[in-house]
């Protein structure tokens, strides 16, 4: 099913919102002393937007450490995410979790692991449940190029392939794992080439082209939903900022490289397409900018005006069934 103009505009709005959200956090990180260390996804927004736009509400997403867009598109409000960054009671797990690993049971988001790659088997297990429950729900999991070197990637994809589970594995290949360049750890051209080792389709797409991502993932989702098993979709993109806001990202790569990639901005790319094809006007673009900027303003206001959790709450909910003194 080709995307409609409305879809394109909607995706554009998500891209813009993600960009604004991330930029705002970067601006405020030190200025306001936001406790969560931001791992900005700026430059990579098209992956999460393209992959999650068009999912069913009952599909389940497991994010990577840099998948802000997925959280937004899956419906976790900017307010809640921002509050999570501030460690507020209105945030993730009432302050227990960071925004970039948060889960949401109702919205179908699995809390991510801080251990890179550790969430891939979990997401495959989500798909296993869907299969056992005889539903046609789909599990979508995001991870980085670095994560594709972890044993869990291998074990999880193999498991998914053997049981033909409804899972779409989306690799956000941003060319770096922290300070290490992909050539230091990937001895082949594409992460997607590893799919052949599990007999599943491995697709490479321009990760800065939200439509390309969307189409590839939707195709994979359709396969999964039809019972035809898992896929690996690799989205080639780039991390504009450092690994985190504590990393200027400058010791291990050339500024020129960053500049080159900035020319391939996923937000601009879609904007140009929309404008040149006459789908939206420059004015509409500005309206969207203004709108999302306000949304982010409100998110910051919400976060800042939210209360911190009661410290004593730290002692609760390590267990779902507290017995014998466990809480």
């Amino acid at each position, binding site marked *: 099913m080709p995307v409609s103009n409305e879809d394109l505009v909607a995706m554009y709005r998500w891209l813009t919102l993600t960009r604004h959200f991330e930029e705002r956090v970067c601006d405020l990180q030190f200025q306001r002393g936001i406790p969560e260390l931001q791992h900005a996804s700026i430059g990579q927004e098209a992956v999460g937007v393209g992959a999650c736009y068009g999912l069913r509400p009952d599909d389940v997403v497991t994010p990577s450490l840099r998948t802000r867009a997925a959280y937004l598109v899956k419906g976790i409000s900017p307010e809640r995410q921002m509050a999570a960054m501030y460690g507020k009671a209105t945030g993730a797990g009432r302050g227990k979790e960071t925004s970039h690993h948060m889960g949401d049971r109702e919205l179908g988001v699995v809390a991510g692991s801080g251990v890179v790659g550790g969430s891939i088997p979990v*997401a*495959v297990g989500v798909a296993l449940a869907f299969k056992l429950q005889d539903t046609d729900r789909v599990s979508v999991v995001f991870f980085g190029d670095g994560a594709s070197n972890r044993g869990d990637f291998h*074990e*999880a994809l193999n498991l998914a392939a053997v049981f033909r589970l409804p899972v779409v594995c989306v690799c956000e290949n941003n060319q770096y794992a922290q300070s290490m360049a992909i050539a230091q750890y990937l001895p082949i051209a594409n992460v997607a080439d590893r799919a052949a080792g599990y007999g599943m389709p491995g697709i490479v797409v321009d990760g800065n082209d939200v439509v390309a991502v969307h189409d590839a993932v939707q195709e994979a989702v359709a396969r999964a939903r039809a019972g035809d098993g898992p896929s690996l979709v690799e989205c080639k993109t780039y991390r504009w900022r450092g690994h985190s806001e504590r990393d200027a990202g400058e010791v291990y790569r050339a500024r020129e490289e960053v500049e080159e990639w900035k020319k391939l901005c996923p937000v601009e790319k879609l904007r140009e397409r929309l404008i040149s094809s006459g789908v939206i006007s420059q004015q509409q673009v500005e309206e969207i900018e203004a709108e999302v900027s306000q949304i982010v303003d409100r998110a910051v206001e919400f976060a800042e005006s939210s209360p911190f959790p009661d410290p004593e709450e730290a002692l609760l909910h390590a*267990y779902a069934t507290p017995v014998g003194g466990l809480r």
Partner: protein
Amino acid sequence: MTEMRVRVAIREALREEMERDDSVFLLGEDIGSFGGAFGVTKGLLEDFGPDRVIEPPLSESGFIGSAVGAAMMGMRPIAEIMFVDFITVAMDQIVNNAAKMSYMYDGEISVPMVIRAPCGAGVRMGVHHSQSFEAWFAHVPGLKVVMPSTPADAKGLLKTSVRDNDPVIFLEHKGNYHTKGPVPDGEHLVPLGKADVKREGRDVTVVALGIMVGKALAAAEQLQEEGISVEVIDPRSLQPLDEESLVASAAKTGRVVIAHEAVGPYGPGAEIAAVIGNGAFGYLDRPIERVAMPFVPVPFSPVLEDHVIPKEEHIIVAVKRVLGEA
């Protein structure tokens, strides 16, 4: 009551819980037609089919992780690790995913899964097939840790574990699978966190874990002949730990021996000793003694392995020591 072996009691628990609840399924290597490395799951594939008895590829991290995801989606996986020694490859999934989810979601999600794992020495398989890691898991908030010693406890604790909403590490001593004992007929549930006095006594408390319970009872029997009255208490779960019952028994007898098969240092007995030392302070007549595997890997050769495995006689010596007789 029906006499049965631990192996059969566990199988019955699995069968009953699978019959009771469609969301319960088994996941493990060679648990199907082969019936599992220790024959525990024999017949279950035939009875429940391959959607309830699932054999994943040899990839413990992958399948334990997938059990976490399935549990979060409303299933109740019971995963089997063939030997607990191999659980080392799945530690991250257990410690950082299974154990953390409830807290990360502030209680809004649960991970109702059980990991069954045969533990312990005595099978002549050497350093990689004989270990005991219960202390590790009991040190992880978010996990429950169960170590049954009798067929009745094995059945009742496993059924409770399957119904529990938290991840439970269920440790079955390989040397116990053939242990026979009476199991109550009909629905039989044993709560987690309740120690069981396996034998009442006045003079000394022996806190014994898993396979050491049988050895402690045998030791108690022998010591009885010498007029020494030994109380044997089995915590049954290490997390939660029934501190109150342990302290009460220690306060009553004033002398305590703790026996487990794991190596001593930083082992489960350390916590139990610390808890009793604190809770029964002033009631203890003698220092607490620990009986444990010496601080070495478990060697293969029978003469070596037999030398390191803690036995009845070690318990007897320790009891005499706390009585000031040795």
